[in-house]
């Protein structure tokens, strides 16, 4: 579920739009390092995958369901910069072709799901990977933690935006409690699925997991061209 039009006021929407433009511009520069001239087709296919993964919903109680955000998953699988680009493109296509998420809220959605979701997920992932033993077995639990933290983090930032530019007089403490409560549950689902997906890719094609690259020897020229 993405933020629709009219949920946040105009100045807040414009400010998050500026943040989103700056974030995507940075990610474009970074992604060229991750993917070189393969950027367009690779990131495009990964964006398609993120879109498909977002179709997966899971129950969070009281008859409501959450869906996978996929930010931390994308960051761990293809790297943070490419991850930001993929999730941003998914949100843009959803807003323009599927009426999912308001067009004036696109900056807000990119800021929350692409920037906060991916960056928080990646930072948690890297921090834990650096202090834990350098083994494949630690990657899935670390992926769980990264995905789990990224969801309530995005919810907390959303609540902050709502405190600044919300359109209804709601006590911010109540919003924060409700948002965090629901999103901790969604975060558990996000974390479990992210960890299981990363574990399965790590088993079948360990070379494709960007977040586990430091565990592999750098491939030689012969291996790359083989």
């Amino acid at each position, binding site marked *: 579920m993405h933020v*629709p*039009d*009219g*949920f946040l006021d*105009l100045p807040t929407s414009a400010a998050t739009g500026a943040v989103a433009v700056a974030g*995507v*511009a940075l990610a474009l520069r970074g*992604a060229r390092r991750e993917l070189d*001239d*393969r*950027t*367009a*087709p*690779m*990131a*495009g*296919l*990964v*964006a*398609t*995958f993120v*879109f*498909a*993964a977002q*179709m*997966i919903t*899971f*129950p969070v109680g009281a008859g409501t369901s959450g869906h996978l955000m996929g930010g931390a998953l994308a960051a761990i*699988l*293809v790297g943070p910069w490419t991850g930001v*680009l*993929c999730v*941003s*493109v*998914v949100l*843009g*296509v959803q807003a*323009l*072709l*599927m*009426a*999912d998420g*308001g*067009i*004036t809220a696109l900056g807000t959605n990119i800021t929350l799901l692409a920037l906060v979701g991916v960056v928080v997920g990646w930072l948690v992932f890297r921090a834990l990977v650096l202090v834990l033993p350098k083994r494949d077995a630690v990657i899935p639990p670390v992926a769980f933690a990264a995905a789990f933290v990224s969801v309530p983090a995005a919810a907390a930032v959303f609540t902050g935006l709502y405190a600044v530019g919300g359109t*209804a*007089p*709601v*006590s911010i403490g*109540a919003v924060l409690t409700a948002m965090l409560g629901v999103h901790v549950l969604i975060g558990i*689902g996000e974390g*479990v*699925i992210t960890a*299981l*997906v*990363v*574990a*399965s*890719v790590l088993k*079948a094609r360990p070379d494709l997991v960007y977040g586990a690259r430091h565990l592999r020897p750098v491939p030689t020229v012969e291996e790359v061209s083989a």
Partner: protein
Amino acid sequence: MGAGHGHRLHYHGHSVVHRAQAHHKVLALLGFMLVVVATPVTWYAVFAAYAVILLGVVAASRVPFGYLAKRMLIEVPFVVFAVLMPFVATGPRIQVLGLSLSEAGLIAAGGFLIKASLGVLGALTLAATTEVPDLLAGLQRLRIPAEMVAIASFMVRYLDVVTAEMSRMFTAMRSRGSDPRSPRHWPAMARTLGALFIRSYERGERVHLAMLSRGYTGRL
């Protein structure tokens, strides 16, 4: 695979709205929605005028209103949120049908619903009347970075391929007695998703190699 022409929301036609330049339509929608969002929530007459303008565009597009109305169901989660707003909002309360509701919450919920509905209907109209290649060309004309447009074009080009692949994998799971939606079967579902990632990534590599062999130099 029933991909066919156009994307899922597209409604084939040759009206004025269909023929309008895509970048004009995107700018018009963005400008319209910025004005809508900036309008104070209690200016109901002004919102009625916005609705008349938007419905005029829908009528001019000759897309049946029922076609768009059915697809406005995407809004339902926000309706639920809006319904809750008067219960949780602060400020003076009024009695409606025996329920104690926040007056400010009611006004805010009404305004939010009006704005969100205008946004969804406007975006649906854009999607129904614009083909994907035109939209992508329009985005490029709006100075969206070429790489972002290229990524988006690959995404929409392979969207049906990858989602159809996922639905075939889930059909295979169901025929073996597991339910992809149930947390009990998450391990199987996640392996499926992992396989889908590998297939998507490898498809991207093959597409890239095919492009290189046709003279791709990093620019489309």
